[in-house]
């Protein structure tokens, strides 16, 4: 059975690092689920429907273009969200889209959280803003989320963004499939060879 993944991305610029994070989270999840034959991905870019979302808030109903996207979210088996952090929280447009989702459409739905920001000092916005929002909506929020600060895109020092994305995608896929977590590596049984430790430090091959 194909897992239907909906992705909500609320980046505004083109290209957008928020969209890039969303795409990479989706790729990592699909990979962990077993590749493109195991999952399909539909991306909802809030920018495309910003006016329709505003109109929905004002009039109480969705335009056909917006309705199509709301249906994608409601019918998906899993949801990945990615929002920029503005003034210490998710963006207003992102919240407006969440506000017009049909009632209970996220209840019991597995959700993977992602957020971007100008500085790593906003990284807890995932836990103090996004996580309570999705807890309120009754979603099954994956414990492993990814915050990508500007510097993460050009550096390996902030914990290797690529690895964090892979780990988040893997954990999310296990949440979706119910697969057990991989065995913990015993550092006394499987010791890291010293050449590898040296290469990590010096960057040598």
């Amino acid at each position, binding site marked *: 059975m194909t897992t239907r993944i909906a992705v909500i991305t609320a980046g505004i610029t083109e290209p957008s690092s928020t969209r890039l994070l969303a795409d990479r989270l989706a790729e990592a999840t699909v990979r962990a689920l077993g590749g493109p034959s195991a999952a399909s991905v539909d991306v909802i870019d809030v920018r495309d429907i910003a006016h329709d979302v505003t109109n929905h808030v004002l009039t109480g*109903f969705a*335009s056909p273009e917006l309705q199509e996207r709301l249906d994608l979210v409601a019918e998906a088996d899993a949801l990945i969200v990615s929002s920029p952090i503005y003034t210490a929280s998710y963006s207003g447009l992102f919240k407006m889209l969440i506000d017009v989702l049909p009632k209970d459409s996220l209840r019991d739905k597995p959700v993977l959280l992602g957020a971007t920001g100008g500085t790593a000092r906003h990284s807890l916005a995932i836990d103090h803003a996004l996580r309570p929002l999705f807890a309120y909506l009754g979603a099954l929020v994956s414990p492993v989320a990814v915050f990508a600060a500007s510097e993460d895109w050009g550096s390996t020092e902030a914990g290797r963004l690529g690895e964090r994305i892979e780990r988040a995608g893997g954990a999310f896929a296990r949440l979706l499939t119910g697969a057990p977590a991989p065995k913990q590596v015993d550092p006394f049984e499987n010791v890291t060879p010293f050449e590898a430790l040296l290469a990590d430090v010096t960057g040598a091959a």
Partner: protein
Amino acid sequence: MPLSRLSGIRVLLVRTGMRQGGSAFDKLNRQQSRDLGHDMQFGIFTVGDVTTDPTTGHTPTEQERIKATVAIAQKAEEVGLDVFATGEHHNPPFAAPGNPPVLLAHLAAVTKRLILSTSTTLITTNDPVRLAEDYAYLQHLADGRVDLMMGRGNTGPVYPWFGKDIREGIPLAIENYALLHRLWREDNVDWQGRFRTPLQGFTSTPRPLDGVPPFVWHGSIRSPEIAEQAAYYGDGFFSNHIFWPASHTRQMVALYRRRFEHYGHGSADQAIVGLGGQAFIRPNSQDAIREFRPYFDKAPVYGHGPSLEEFMRQTPLLVGSPQQVIEATLGYREYVGDYQRQLWLMDHAGLPLKTVLEQLDILGSEVVPVLRKEFAALKPARVPDAPTHQSLVAAAGGSRDATVYTDADDVTGASPEESRAARATTPEGSLR
């Protein structure tokens, strides 16, 4: 012991179903024969909003708005429409009556054949006993030219003003209507529920005219429970069909029709359906759009949101020529089936009275006559006509005097305490 002391007993020895000479129905039948044989009813409904005219800055006073409403209803009759329905409101910016029978009783006196209705009567915050009494009284004054549409109302603060809770909206609508339905059909009602004082041996007066309660429509935009309620009782279902996409209407009407058949009132296509609509009409469609746009752009419901063009595409709002309005309206039956009543909202968003009256002239002279003919030609014979008091009386087997005759009551007789004492000490009292 004087007879009056026994009044508490006599109230219960009522003569029900008593026939009196000179049928009121015969008289009505002669007076209002024009109403018979209308396949479909056309009319207008209003919410009584007091809105500033964005083109002049003029805001009508409450009295201007109220008198305009009367003029609009009279005009509706003059141009040949069948129905006028008023909203019920308890808060500004509305000048619709808090109790619609106040307005409708006046309209009954200044019109001859217009059916007077509501859009809507709040079944949630009103005491069903008062509804039973007031609408039955109105029925008598208006010689049967009355029906009503039940709605829940969607303004949060209104509920607590009447001691109710909006979160109980559906249970209130269900319980209150169950009581209202009985009060109109049973002379003596014993009743207990969650939301009001229990009743013992209660007779709602006056009894419905000719023993036939007013026809009831149930209005709802998206609550399946209300479509289910209408179907259960075999009442009409009205979809407001404005401000929201037609998909809501399609879904609700389909549910109502399916359940109407389930409850054995007839086949699905025989269910009684009414639709709202909203139109602004000028001979030339470009003129209609140019004139209506400033009202649309500032309107309380949709103003400052989607463009007029988007809103026309996404909802049943019609702004255009008579021919465009005719074609679009005929198209409604493609998604609701053959239906019985079409009402339009014509007087909102600050449109001045003069414009509204012109609109009614166009509606009555160029749109409705064509729709009457076209809809009648399309409707299969098995689909019932729109219900009227006369058709309901005929279906009930003819008119009857439903008056509950009693000798006296506790007010003109003894005190309730004395009546109870008398009851306990007389042989008749033991009959209870």
